[in-house]
């Protein structure tokens, strides 16, 4: 998707947009003038796209240091009369929730939308939470678009609804919308920008709580009629069908597919496509519920609509059979797909349907292709250094004689085989937080927190301060790879660049640690493996909190930089005379460029994968690896 397309004022033109690009285009069409976000899969491309055109569009866009700040930035803009948007992944809303739970009482003046990108199945996440629950919890309206077209339109409709009821509106996206491309018909771009217009007679607050709580209820009630008319709600029925399907958000796409897969006729099944899961458009839903004896609820995530329907039926005094997740017609865990939705529908209609059995032809055994850190990734060197430092200092298996608390980033892969790095892996910043706790349990072993610099800026600073304040003997290793790598290389305060490409003061983790009065602060290049090992050992021997900054650019970024600078990547050579086939390099460093030659029983280096970091040459016990150059020379 090119920048030009995003800025094109060509109503009616159809273009291919990623769901997240469509949200960004929607922000432009809705006249959003302030947007803020923190990267997180599957939401990141919303801000990436918007920031790339923000200057040209005359709007402000930022990567905030975390989702709470992002929400507050957007909130204040909406209070000041400018339309605004914040976007984040589902678990990011947990971080922002402290502010959301009062901003709903305090209200807004201009339209504001919060895009939450949920991730059922946890493709790139640590849980499957359904943020429509946050809409209920915060009593805010929620839109659930089903297609990239609706994604774009939801920002415009969301801003209008928000402005009308003076409440932020939550838009629920998911992986299968944010990361789905589709044809999108563009709408018009606004001609005029607004000027800020802050009402100084009002203090935006939740106090006194009962009054503001009532204000929230009145505001929500004021748009109930509008929610009935949101165009994402649609009934496809003639009357007299055997059953009715109520499909929320992307559930509609699978419901339609199921009808096709079972060769049903259109008049066999009625469909209510629901685009407003909270609060339910009561009249629309009630009429549908009254028309069918059996209702199949198709939704991704929690049985959110299903439960509300049961409550509504009680109020209406009707008793249709409501089937869905709670009845076992759809699974409670994982994400729904065409087969699961079809299976549930077939069961209800008594149709014999089995999804095709997936079996590899010819009984071939296909090797797994598990995710791995990249060749030359500095996390690999630091993982190795941590294990070695603990092994040498504590004389035992690192898993048994130390505690390592992991965090969120590419290095989260350290949680899986073969890395097996972490005892805990919870959420942003929890590496240092949990390490604080382990330090006060009386376990007399090195307690290590491991995180990246973007995560440190996001949620690692308060627990570090806590460690100094409360005297936790923890060793914090911040791998500073000079970018927010996992979500696609966004800048952060440690990079010295903003989302809109402006220079910013560069924050150094070591400066912050020193300001926090951490007694042991050192910066090491992880490509100097022995120096890193010895620094970690020294930190372990020194009582009190310690911060080691292991600084090396993300190998993928470094590769691009090397290409630009004309630095050739020359893999090191393995001396086949000296290599004893001990596999130490392969099994200990775990670099994907190190490969095993079964025919000669020796290690080898994949020249296409190798980035020329030079770490393997430093760790080979036989000194059989030497030479080579590449990103290690940057």
């Amino acid at each position, binding site marked *: *998707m*090119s920048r030009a397309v995003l800025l094109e004022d060509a109503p009616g033109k159809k273009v*291919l947009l990623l769901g997240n690009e469509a949200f960004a285009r929607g922000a432009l069409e809705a006249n959003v003038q302030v947007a803020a976000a923190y990267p997180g*899969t*599957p939401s*990141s*491309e919303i801000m990436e796209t918007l920031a790339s055109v923000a200057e040209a569009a005359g709007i402000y866009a930022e990567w905030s240091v975390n989702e709470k700040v992002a929400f507050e930035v957007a909130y204040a803009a909406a209070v000041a009369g400018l339309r605004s948007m914040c976007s984040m992944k589902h678990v990011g809303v947990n971080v922002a929730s402290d502010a959301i739970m009062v901003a709903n009482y305090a209200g807004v003046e201009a339209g504001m939308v919060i895009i939450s990108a949920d991730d059922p199945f946890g*493709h*790139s996440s640590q849980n499957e939470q359904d943020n429509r629950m946050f809409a209920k919890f915060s009593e805010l309206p929620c839109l659930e678009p089903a*297609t990239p077209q609706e994604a774009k339109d939801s920002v415009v409709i969301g801003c209008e609804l928000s402005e009308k009821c003076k409440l932020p509106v939550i838009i629920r996206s998911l992986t*299968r*919308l944010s*990361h*789905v*491309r*589709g*044809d999108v018909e563009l709408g018009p771009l606004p001609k005029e920008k607004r000027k800020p217009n802050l009402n100084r007679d009002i203090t935006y607050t939740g106090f006194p709580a009962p009054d503001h709580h009532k204000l929230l209820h009145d505001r929500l009630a004021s748009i109930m009629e509008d929610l009935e008319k949101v165009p994402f709600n649609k009934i496809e029925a003639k009357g007299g069908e055997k059953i009715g399907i109520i499909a929320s958000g*992307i559930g*509609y*796409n*699978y419901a*339609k*597919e199921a009808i*096709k*897969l079972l060769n049903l006729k259109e008049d066999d099944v009625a469909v209510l496509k629901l685009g407003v899961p909270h609060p339910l458009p009561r009249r629309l839903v009630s009429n549908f519920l009254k028309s069918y004896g059996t209702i199949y609820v198709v939704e991704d995530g929690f049985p959110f609509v299903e439960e509300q329907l049961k409550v509504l039926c009680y109020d209406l005094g009707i008793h249709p059979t409501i089937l869905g997740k709670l009845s076992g017609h759809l699974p409670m865990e994982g994400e729904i*797909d*065409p*087969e699961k939705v*079809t299976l549930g529908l077939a069961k209800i209609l008594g149709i014999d349907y089995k999804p*095709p059995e*997936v*079996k*590899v*032809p*010819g009984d*071939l*055994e*296909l*090797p*797994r*292709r*598990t*995710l*791995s*850190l*990249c060749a030359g990734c500095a996390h690999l060197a630091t993982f190795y250094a941590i294990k070695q430092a603990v092994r040498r200092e504590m004389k035992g298996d690192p898993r048994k004689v130390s505690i390592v608390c992991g965090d969120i980033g*590419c290095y989260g*892969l350290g949680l899986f085989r*073969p890395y097996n790095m972490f005892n805990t892996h919870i959420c942003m910043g929890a590496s240092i937080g949990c390490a604080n706790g382990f330090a006060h349990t009386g376990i007399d072993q090195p307690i290590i927190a491991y995180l990246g610099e973007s995560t440190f800026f996001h949620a690692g600073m308060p627990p570090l301060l806590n460690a100094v304040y409360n005297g936790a003997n923890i060793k914090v290793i911040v791998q500073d790879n000079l970018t927010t790598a*996992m979500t*696609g290389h966004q800048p952060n305060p440690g990079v010295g660049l903003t989302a809109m490409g402006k220079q910013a003061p560069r924050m150094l983790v070591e400066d912050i640690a020193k300001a926090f009065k951490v007694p042991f602060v050192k910066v090491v290049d992880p490509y100097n493996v022995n120096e890193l090992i010895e620094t970690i050992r020294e930190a372990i021997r020194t009582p009190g909190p310690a911060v080691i900054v292991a600084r090396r650019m993300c190998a993928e970024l470094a590769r691009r930089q090397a290409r630009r600078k004309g630095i050739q990547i020359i893999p090191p050579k393995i001396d086949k005379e000296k290599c004893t086939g001990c*596999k130490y390099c*392969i*099994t200990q460093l775990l670099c*994907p460029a*190190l*490969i*095993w030659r*079964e025919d000669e029983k020796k290690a080898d280096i*994949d020249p296409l994968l190798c980035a020329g970091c030079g770490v393997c040459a430093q760790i080979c016990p036989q000194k059989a690896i030497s030479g080579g150059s590449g990103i290690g020379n940057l």
Partner: protein
Amino acid sequence: MATSKKEEITLAIAGVGGQGTLLASQIIGHAAVKQGFSVRISETFGMSQRGGPVVSHIRIAKNVYSPLIPLMTAELILGFEPLEALRAATRFLARGGSVIVNTRTIYPVEVNRGDMKYPPLEKMLEALKSIAGEVVTLDATSLAIKAGNPISANIVMLGALAALEKLPFKPEDLREAVRERVPREVETNLRAFDLGFQTIKEQIGK
């Protein structure tokens, strides 16, 4: 659908993170939208990309719904890597459909470490032939090097796709989409497209 002219297609692109499958599916989608079709493409982003298998689900029709392809309903698998082509074909290929395989292998970490075995290429092609009506192969990486840049292997694969003429639009439309959506090294990429196209045309003898 019993029409003489193709009006829809469901296909999957299978490969390994970093092979340029995202750009390839974007180009196909762009061409389809320009020809007035409705399109859904579901892709693998984020952490799951790190050296893992990636599959792009592509559906082009008058009206499309599910962004995920129902099992065994794809008419075509565009395989950027043999193992992943077979893995995806097993799940998604409508039996009797077509498979295009880039024969250049990328070993998984498990194989590189000697923990698992990579099946022989001939065995995998044999397995593919047992479920597909048509299997064509090419070394897209070599052809891309010939065109001027190994990174253009994804564009070679698009040329190969165009040559099978299973898309509901003309090969030239896809070629034009390459020109429009790949801003850099246009000539190299068009050469890459043409090499993929010719190689498969010669193979199927049309």
